[in-house]
């Protein structure tokens, strides 16, 4: 198997501390194209390989503003433009009465947009992923922590990368086929 047929080289650990330390070492050796897989969120891990911030909050905000504005517009349009109906001389644009629906529509659209953004940015649904080929990877959702250096990394070399990973005292070093 040449490095073209490999997705990457993975190392398996059994504590969050071990993978955090391993990721720091791998980053110090100059690798950038690496991914970590953990059974629960481990703080600081994504940041090591340059994933500092996410746009998720912006999507929530945009969805919320759109929903609230749209919700208010709908009520204003219905009561002022499309079907103005004088009931006891009450103002057509009686905006305080429109607030509850404006609020609910804001929440609804913020939640829908934000969660959709989370799923799409994570490129889910993704039925196949190279890591799923490893039988050991089943435990990534139980009690094992995986670090995978991708073969697309300019520094990737089958032997050197494997040696580096072995020096980190993992439970196993595994080749991930493409």
């Amino acid at each position, binding site marked *: 198997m040449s490095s073209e047929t490999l997705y990457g080289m993975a190392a398996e650990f059994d504590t*969050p501390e071990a993978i955090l330390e391993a990721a720091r070492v791998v980053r110090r050796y100059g690798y950038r194209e690496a*991914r*970590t*897989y*953990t*059974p*629960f*969120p*481990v703080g600081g*891990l*994504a940041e090591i390989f340059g*994933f500092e911030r*996410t746009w*998720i*909050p912006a999507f*929530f905000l945009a969805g*919320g503003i759109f929903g609230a504005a749209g919700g208010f517009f*709908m*009520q204003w349009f*219905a*009561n002022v433009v*499309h*079907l103005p109906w004088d009931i006891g001389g*009450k103002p057509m644009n*009686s905006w305080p*009465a*429109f607030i*509850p*629906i404006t*609020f*609910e*529509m804001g*929440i*609804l659209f*913020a*939640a*829908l947009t*934000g*969660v959709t*953004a*989370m*799923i799409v*940015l*994570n490129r*889910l*649904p*993704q*039925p*196949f*992923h190279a*890591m*799923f080929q490893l039988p050991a*990877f*089943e*435990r*990534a*959702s*139980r*009690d094992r922590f995986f670090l995978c250096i991708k073969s697309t990394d300019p520094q990737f070399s089958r032997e050197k990368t494997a040696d580096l990973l072995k020096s980190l005292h993992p439970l196993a070093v595994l080749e991930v086929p493409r």
Partner: protein
Amino acid sequence: MTATAESPVTISSGQDMTQVIPVLMPGATYASVTDQIGGIVQRPLTWLWIMAFGITFVVVMVLTGAIAYLLLRGVGIWGIDIPVAWGFAITNFVWWIGIGHAGTFISAMLLLMRQNWRTSINRFAEAMTLFAVACAGMFPLMHLGRIKFFYWLAPYPNTMALWPQFRSALVWDVFAVSTYGLVSLIFWYVGLIPDLATMRDRSRNRFTWTIYGMMAMGWRGDSRHWLRYQTAYLLLAGLAAPLVVSVHSIVGMDFSEAQLPGWHSTIFPPYFVAGAIFSGFAMVLTLAIPMRSLFGFKNLITIRHIDNCCKLMLVTELLVAYGYAAEVYTGWYSGSVYESYMTMNRFIGPYAPAYWSLIFCNIVAPQILWSRRVRQNVIIVFILSLVINVGMWLERFMIIITSLQRDFLPSSWGMYYPTFWDWATFIGTLGLFFCMFFLFARLLPAISIAEVRELVHETAGGSVPPSKMEPANVI
């Protein structure tokens, strides 16, 4: 006095039991919690479950029968009439939607408050919310009379150029309840994604592997995914927290917008929210106490959880008691003959037994929760939770029936008697609720596995040193 104040060590060494009882029993590892919670779903069916599911399924059939007859004959099969046009249907609606409030409260509010004890109860509390909202949502639709026109509630382009009345609290309610149901579903599903991946990886047959695999969408615990996931989950919690408050406030406004004595009161929105969370926690305990025994979750849902839920019940109970007191005070202070008559009618009128029962169930009985020994006795807490469920149902019954029954003119007074079909519909939704809950408990992890793994990490990592979690201190 001064001695204890100067020596805090003696205070913390065994006086306050709740400080010692951990939220997670010692000895838990990532693998053990995963296998324990995931294993429940994979173990063979027990006769107890089949029996319980079978009985509730029969009750669901009663509900389908009641709905079919309702569609055939109309709302005349119920006891409603003028003046009591809102009978069991609205009572049940408000009761169910109230129960549905605890799930999102636990998930959202307690997450934002960093109450880590929520971890092992949030999943099934959210499921409870969804099922309760499903039961609640049916009642206003059934109460419409002509169910086939239910879509008239929604603003849609129509040839009649008509719009819903956006100034009405009843239309706000349509938006509030449907938003609440949808956001609760999203919140629940997002929380489930990592656990569905765990279930996919645990599957040993192709069928479950495919189903859980599709639902998990290819989740693999990538750290970048986790970061986006956690951000989205936290923001969802931030959105859901005010949503919880808004939904039952709007339900309260359904009543207070009317001019009827007993309904026309500014206390309603906060009083309804407190009552909703009160009844919701009662239902959480009704479900949690048998579940922790039957599924062997005593190490995950500890006495600490029961104790904390009881404390929250006590707080919300006192808020509800304030609401009752404010209603009576308003009856006197308003100087209105109608308001004061309505209050007296509750005390000594034809429905007085319901009023005094609810005072007993919601105000008197929960006072035993001041005692820690009671809060930590699961049998007493379980019985009390049932009593509170009944009490909160009676509260809604009392608010709706006694207010409508004798309003302004004695010539328009009347009585309300529930019919067989009222009861069949109500009991049918109880069956639906428990039937869906039994299915949930068998098909999905009832406790969030990923979050408990995180809790294992946190408690081993310093916030609760393992040395302090000695089994001797544990009930």
